[in-house]
């Protein structure tokens, strides 16, 4: 049951991903302007500051715990391209 729910959520999210990509979301105004992202751009706000050293510590836990996945690393930083 939990698994079915997870798969449903995954498919729903993927559908949203595709739809958002098609629309471009041009009408939504960013509430944090690019010039207001100096704190977010600070390296101390990176979710993965240490490169592969961060990946390695996930490896340490995966080998000794049953839980796996969703370790993160997606995003972080200011998104100011």
């Amino acid at each position: 049951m939990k698994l079915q729910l997870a798969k449903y959520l995954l498919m729903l999210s993927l559908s949203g991903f595709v739809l958002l990509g098609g629309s471009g979301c041009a009408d939504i105004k960013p509430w944090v302007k690019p010039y207001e992202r100096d704190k977010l751009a600070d390296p101390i706000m990176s979710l993965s500051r240490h490169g592969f050293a961060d990946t390695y510590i996930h490896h340490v836990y995966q080998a000794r715990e049953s839980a796996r996945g969703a370790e993160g690393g997606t995003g972080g930083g200011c998104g100011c391209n």
Partner: protein
Amino acid sequence: MPKAAQEAVVAVISRSLLWLSVLVSFTAYSATLPPDAVDILQHNYEGGGMKIDGPSILVRKSVGPQVSLTGHYYVDSVSAASVDVLARASAYEEERTEISGGVDYLHEKSILSLGYTNSSENDYEANTVYFSASQDFFGDLTSVSFAYAKGWDDVGTRGSTETDELKRQNYQLGVAQVISKSMLLGLDLEVITDEGKLENPYRRNRYIDPANSANFLYQQEVYPDTRTSTAFAVRSMYYLPYRASLKGEYRFFTDTWGIDAHTVDASYVHPLDNHWTLEAKTRFYTQGQADFYSDLFPFENSQTHLGRDKELSKFSDITFGFGINYELQQGVIPGIKRLQLSFLADYIKFDYDNFRDVTAEGSFLPGEEPLYSFSAWVTRSSLILEF
């Protein structure tokens, strides 16, 4: 049974799952290609009778404004004398080598990534291909990523030429959201399916000797042929009123073997000046046992699936970590835009609730041995050069 053959839960699980972490690292960027860089790591794990160390070298180089290539070389040198090894055999040494290659392609606000990983050791071969896509939305306040990976493993046993297959699939979805000028939020969902030889060919479970109840005998592990797991995590990062950051995260995990797990993690980063940064973290993990786990089965083949891996038992662990980081920015060293030197150390304490230490000194009836526990130190020395 070759004597150098026992410590495989660590090896089997870690060698087949490291590619997932590599995959995560490749999806960790919004719609900007990462800079050209060399990432060198020396890692060391020591605890519970295990010593694992080795180097890791990752090189990233762009080819034009839209393409970035990566190559990665990683080694685990293992010296094993854990409780699982000592219970039935002698200590042994082995080495695992992993090689990866990947390409990232930037198109407007999207990044598409493709890669391949091979992991090799004397009794296990793992091959993985992966694809990921990420896209920025809402004025780059939202980043959504999706990844898929497929793996083919050959599971062998020392002393035998026969191998068993193991197939893996991984689905990953991530959202990173800018909440405010000082706050980030991340959501991650990951579903992993395995099919094939999932038990460790070297591990055994134990049952009460029918001829003498003060004794126990060993038998082969028998796991289900399939496993599907789902993990969901929420993490947030906050820039404090002074220059420092605080990160918190929670992960829920569940799988078709009946294991539920919870992970809570908090970390703090505190710059001392423009070059030196200190950090501290704590992490707590707890899990329930697998449906087919038992420390001591009542008789031989007493149920369809039989498992006594301590990783399937009910246990918890807690981590305390600290780190020191030195950074140089552009202009100090010619040709190098950024240098980051880090030393990180983590202390982890594992406490098992229903896995007993059969190597404990003293005379105990089966099932009355002391519960097992151990601690480990993990150290990482990292140098990152960006060009």
